[in-house]
């Protein structure tokens, strides 16, 4: 290995993650043979997250099996979803499993590369060199994406689709472009971009991408058909199950949503992102018991992020409420400290107040009433809006409940919570009020539709 590349590797921060001391030793030797100087170790999942938070490595060498029912893939997903790892860091998966290729083909978030043991330091360096080159090439795109500067990101992709520098990355540019269109909120362009990729090969991730593009266009049935085909042909593609769950929730098919995510959740152990999705689907489906045991599991065991988040705690309160256990709901609500509420989002604060009002109407009536103005103007998410409707109905604030429901109807969000809201109105003997709201929304839609 020549001096210049030794110099390059000397300046990179390595993190080696493996639960087996012998294997850590092997990877350290590899890294040092390449010239690496700063090599840190981690013995497993949680420790790795702590270290990455403290100091971002340039290169991560991570074994696929991390023990304790955890995998390198789960770690990668956690790091990317919670934005703990910048795109510039190289994540290299290391495994002795020949069939790891099939794993990579079946996940949405892929490592930058992987290498199958045994390998010489030369070969690891060969793959790292290429991964680092690719990172250098895409750096302006990563930056633009981080700043949600979609114009710059699109200009980068357009400039390199036929450039010489972009030639080795032409396929990667296609994929980046498709994902960019989704992130930008142009699902029609995203669909075209995924179709271009599918013209080359029926990659499961590209089919799932197309399904997601259709979902965002409210073409739920088509999206569902594609995602069901992906599940059929690539049963290891777990993300497709999550996508199907969300599509079913959008379609109001809560039963199938819960069944889908419950099946896959049972097979993927400690994937807490998925468990939260299960709790959402179960609550919509009226299975409050499952929602509540799932949220209790999440709060107790997903301790990677320190204190449980307010949104998780609120979800547990809702699950207890729907189970008819207001005592447990009260206890769970009290666990949300005043201090943590200071940094909460407006949605969370509103939900907190609404749930408080539901549990102790007399105490909370005044404060809840004071919020009336901001509730109308805040542009709350569907979950917080449903909490408000529920509280308003309990506090006999029928007018507020009606206004918030009307606002929900005028957005696409009503789809996901339609049955839930209808049940709330029904339980207060207000079926006719709900039907009127539904009628008005339908008329509004017809009036707004372009004349043909």
């Amino acid at each position, binding site marked *: 290995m020549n001096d210049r590349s030794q110099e390059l590797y000397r300046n990179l921060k390595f993190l080696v993650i493996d639960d087996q001391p*012998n*294997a850590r030793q*092997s990877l350290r030797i590899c890294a040092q043979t390449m010239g690496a100087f700063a090599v840190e170790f981690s013995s497993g999942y949680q420790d790795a997250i702590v270290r990455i938070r403290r100091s971002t490595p340039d290169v991560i060498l991570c074994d696929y099996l991390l023990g304790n029912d955890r995998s390198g893939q789960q770690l990668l997903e956690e790091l990317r979803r919670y934005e703990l790892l910048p795109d510039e860091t190289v994540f290299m998966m290391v495994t002795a499993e*020949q*069939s790891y290729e099939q794993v990579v083909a079946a996940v949405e978030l892929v490592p930058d590369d992987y290498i*199958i043991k045994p390998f*010489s330091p030369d070969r690891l360096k060969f793959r790292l060199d290429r991964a680092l080159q690719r990172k250098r090439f895409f750096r302006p795109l990563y930056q633009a994406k981080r700043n949600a500067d979609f114009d710059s990101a699109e200009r980068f992709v357009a400039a390199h689709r036929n450039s010489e520098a972009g030639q*080795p990355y032409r396929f990667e540019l296609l994929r980046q472009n498709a994902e960019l269109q989704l992130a930008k909120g142009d699902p029609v362009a995203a669909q075209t971009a995924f179709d271009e990729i599918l013209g*080359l*090969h029926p990659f499961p991730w590209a089919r799932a991408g197309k399904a997601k593009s259709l979902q965002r266009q409210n073409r739920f049935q088509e999206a569902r058909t594609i995602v069901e085909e992906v599940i059929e042909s690539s049963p290891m593609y777990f993300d497709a199950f999550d996508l199907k769950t969300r599509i079913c929730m959008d379609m109001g098919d809560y039963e199938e949503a819960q069944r889908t995510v419950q099946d896959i959740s049972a097979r993927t152990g400690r994937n807490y992102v998925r468990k939260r999705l299960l709790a959402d689907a179960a609550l919509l489906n009226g299975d409050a018991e499952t929602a509540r045991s799932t949220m209790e599991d999440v709060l107790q065991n997903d301790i990677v992020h320190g204190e449980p988040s307010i949104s998780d705690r609120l979800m547990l309160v809702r699950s207890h409420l729907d189970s008819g256990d207001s005592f447990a709901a009260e206890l769970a609500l009290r666990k949300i400290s005043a201090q943590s509420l200071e940094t909460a989002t407006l949605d969370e604060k509103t939900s907190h107040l609404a749930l408080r009002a539901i549990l102790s109407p007399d105490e909370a009536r005044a404060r809840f009433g004071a919020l009336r103005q901001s509730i109308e103007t805040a542009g709350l998410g569907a979950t917080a809006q449903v909490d408000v409707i529920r509280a308003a109905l309990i506090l006999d604030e029928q007018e507020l409940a009606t206004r918030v429901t009307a606002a929900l109807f005028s957005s696409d969000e009503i789809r996901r919570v339609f049955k839930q809201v209808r049940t709330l109105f029904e339980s207060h003997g207000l079926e006719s009020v709900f039907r009127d709201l539904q009628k008005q929304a339908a008329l509004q839609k017809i009036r707004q539709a372009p004349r043909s």
Partner: protein
Amino acid sequence: MHRILDILSSGIHDAKNQLFLAESLIAQAEAEHGLKLDEARFAIEHAASRLSRLLTAYKLQRKVGSLSIDMVSVPDLLEEAALISASHCTHLGLRLNTESPQGLGWLLDRELLLDILTNAIQNACRYARSQITLSATADEKGLTLKVEDDGPGYSEPDVETMTGNGVGLFVAAEIARMHKSGARHGKLALANGGRHGGAVFELFLP
């Protein structure tokens, strides 16, 4: 049947982990004591790839093997295959060249192709007199990967006969066949002659 496959897979998995530890310890000894133990490392990697190949062959025979297709850089594939055998060729006094169009990408299973090319190069090493060339060419019909040497050539340059003789050629022929594009599929061909007048191992992928 899947149980046997699981047992085989996990046994091979453990063995490869141990071989990796052995190889790393050798690399460490090389670095610490200024030794060159390339042939020891080569023997370890060789043993590991034989184990993987046996597992692949078993899966193919049982029809449970499948490909993981991705867009792969062909020059990188060739360069990596050459890198795996580079020190062994040097040790034998053989020149190993690669030739590939720049920037060419192809849809293929990288790990399986690497193994097949490595095996073909190592076979060539046993017979070549002075040189081996690994090359790639592409046209609208497909990608052709060749390993050519200047040895005496195949005793019987016939795929049907030769694939019965070894796991390596059996795997190569099956994996080539599994690479498909529309109605066309890949194939393995063996010949004598070529640019160096010896054996020609030729994989065609659509």
